[in-house]
């Protein structure tokens, strides 16, 4: 197990290092000079050169890369060109919206998906199964922004239980903040839940067809005991894989929903930064997102080994 952990950690660090290089290179290649954008088209060559020097843009590529990476390592992400505030502050401000949103959405989706998936698998071919599978088809097919707008109309406009958009900030009380996050979380969670539910069902059904299930039945265990004690843990690997992917998506891929609900999240921050050529913000946010995705995958890998002891001794 220790060896497995060490191996995974080494690969985690290598992937992180590699990703910073790739991100840095891509940002170098993308057209658009930040100094020019800040100063506007009317700027003279001298002022642009001066600003470039001030921003360190005239230094060699390698030097700039190491300056940037060493800054990232100590939490100094630089200063945004457009907002003129430290990028770390910007990201922190947005993360307190995006992170809770992602966590709530993932929790909701798991809470819906796993039980329905198990229920569908245990009632395979019966009305419950076909009903649940039909609903998941709908969940996957309906675009989440459309569903979001529908919910806004019902719960915010007609019933007026929750605000239609915006985020009051956590200092206005947890309840108020949660109220404004709940609709976007549901809108994000439903399609994810639909996918996860289908994955859970098919993984369980596959596990239930294995030989060891027959052994367990021959031991005298009832159908449901076999499902809970033997099939479920074996079915967890594909379910965990999908959950890992979904969490990564929920952190960064929420821009449409953030726009529908007018939430100041990370997705919108990146979008704005890209349109304004605020490279330093884009770079730092993307690095953080990539790092969290890699970290989530690392956690998923460790959970795999915990679920399936064979992986701990697998040759690599």
């Amino acid at each position, binding site marked *: 197990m220790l*060896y497995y952990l*060490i191996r995974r950690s080494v690969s985690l660090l290598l992937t992180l290092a590699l990703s910073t290089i790739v991100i840095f290179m891509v940002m170098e290649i993308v057209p658009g000079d930040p100094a020019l954008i800040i100063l506007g088209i009317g700027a003279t060559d001298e002022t642009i050169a001066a600003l470039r020097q001030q921003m360190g843009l005239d230094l060699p590529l390698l030097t700039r890369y190491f300056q940037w990476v060493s800054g990232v390592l100590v939490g100094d992400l630089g200063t945004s060109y457009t907002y003129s505030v430290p990028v770390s502050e910007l990201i922190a401000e947005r993360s307190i919206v995006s992170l809770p949103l992602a966590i709530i959405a993932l929790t909701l989706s798991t809470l819906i998906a796993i039980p329905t998936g198990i229920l569908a698998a245990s009632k395979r071919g019966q009305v419950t199964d076909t009903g649940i599978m039909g609903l998941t088809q709908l969940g996957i097919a309906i675009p989440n922004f459309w569903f979001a707008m529908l919910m806004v109309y019902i719960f915010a406009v007609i019933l007026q239980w929750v605000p239609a958009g915006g985020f009051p900030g956590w200092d206005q009380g947890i309840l108020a903040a949660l109220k404004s996050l709940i609709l976007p979380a549901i809108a994000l969670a439903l399609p994810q839940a639909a996918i996860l539910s289908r994955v859970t069902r098919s993984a369980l059904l596959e596990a239930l067809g*294995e*030989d*060891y299930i*027959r*052994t*367990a*039945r*021959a*031991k*005298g*265990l*009832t159908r449901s*005991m076999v499902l809970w*004690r*033997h099939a479920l*843990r*074996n079915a967890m690997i594909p379910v965990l894989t999908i959950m890992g992917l979904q969490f990564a998506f929920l952190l960064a891929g929420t821009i449409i929903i953030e726009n529908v609900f007018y939430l100041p999240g990370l997705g919108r921050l990146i979008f704005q930064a890209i349109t304004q050529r605020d490279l330093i913000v884009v770079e730092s946010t993307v690095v953080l997102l990539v790092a969290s995705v890699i970290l989530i995958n690392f956690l998923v890998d460790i959970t795999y080994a915990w*679920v*399936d*002891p*064979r992986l701990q*001794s697998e*040759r*690599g």
Partner: protein
Amino acid sequence: MLSIKNLSLTIGDISVLKDIDLNIKPGQIMGLVGESGSGKSMTALAVMQLLPHASKTSGEIRFGDLDILNATEKQMCNLRGDEIGMVFQEPMTALNPVKTIGEQIAEGIRFHTGASGKDARDQAARILEQVGLPTSKFGLNRYPHELSGGQRQRVVIAIACAIQPKLLIADEPTTALDVTIQAQILDLLKKLVEENNMGLLLISHDLGVIADAADEITIIRSGEIIEAGPTRDILRNQSHPYTRQLAKASTHVPVRKTKPVTALDAKKAQTPPLLQVTNLICEYPTKRNSLFEKPLPFRAVDDVSFDIFPGQTLALVGESGCGKSTLARTLLRVHEPHSGGIEFEDMDLLNSGHQEIIAARRHMQIVFQDPYGSFNPRHKVSNIISEPMHLVKRKIGKDELVDALIQVGLEANDLEKYPHEFSGGQRQRIAIARALITKPRLIIADEPVSALDVSIRAQILDLLNYLRDKFRISYLFITHDLSVVRAFCDDVMVMNSGKIVETGSVSQLFDNPASDYTKQLLAAAPDLQKTLSARNS
């Protein structure tokens, strides 16, 4: 104790069992023999009421006072694992990979006796000791993947016998195991029957296994009982034609028209060898245990040398994992050897160019154990058979394909069919036709008859024999089944842990084995003839 009367079973519209009668008394071993698809396993599953969906049963199954066909699911759950235990064929997949063996044995004990976790674990340790896995060496917290196939089968038996069932059903319990392990598992089952006065329903396709172990025998074919009675009488009298056919097929010896070619004779006649292997070593990288040391490679084939002469059939026997298949793959150069030499028809295969190797491959073909796995399911038979023709770089005419099919006993119109339309034996014929199409001089046959029923096995051996008589083909015949070696081969090589431990002609090696390992193998192999004559005397 168990009495089955007029049991019939249909699944969907297909009739699987018809009027089965079977009785087992305490302390008795009942052997149920039949070929694949005969309904052996379905009979067992009917007793356990673990039949697939859409099954309809009629008749009567009584276990003690319980009418099993009309029992509730709750009654059956109480019965399974408590009064009736069951052991399955495939030990590699019969255990849950994510639970320790201790948990898996204790689970049934807790369910049936309501014992505490600790008591159940103690009991599990005792039963593991009884099946030959002492907890000092095989702790309860081991996972299945840390055990070998034979050890896993012992765990499965431990689960089935955890609370001393009155009846144990063992469905092909040794089919997936090596002969020496098979002998151990059969001994263990016999010991459990004796110690616990348990009834045992032993299901097998192998008449040798049943003849050795069972008191009574029931022979089943296409869901109907052909013959039943005391093993000794049934097998001695062989009054029913099917029984005779089974016994004959199990001990079938193809009639060879040409003289056997042994290495000794060939050397005397100064025939040059077709294939010459010298000091071959193959290695696999192993798992790294430390960050700082490079792991030692695993030596799968260790300094192996041998010759194959034209027309010779050389058997390569050994238990699973001994390096047989690695050796075969290296000869075909699918796997690169670490060192050594392979010469085929005076050509150095290891140091030749690509073109020359292709030319050599034409004369060297392979037949696998599982033909279905080696066919592309979306290819027609004509495509499958003509596949090796790229080696000869010429288009093949339809009449040549038809000839190849007829040679292996198939028909011309089979060319347009797909692999799934054939039975296992027919598929093996297609595989042989594919090997024959380039007119090879050597065929490497890797367990070619192991997956086949005895009657089909006899037919395929006859076919291989016919081809060797007609085309003077040499075979490297890889197998774990010593009865096939004796019936079909000229010389034998015995392999153990990558090394050749003994080589000789079939008669010499079987009658006067020199190495301990060969003696051990021979003693463990079930031999129908020997068992019968021993039982008769």
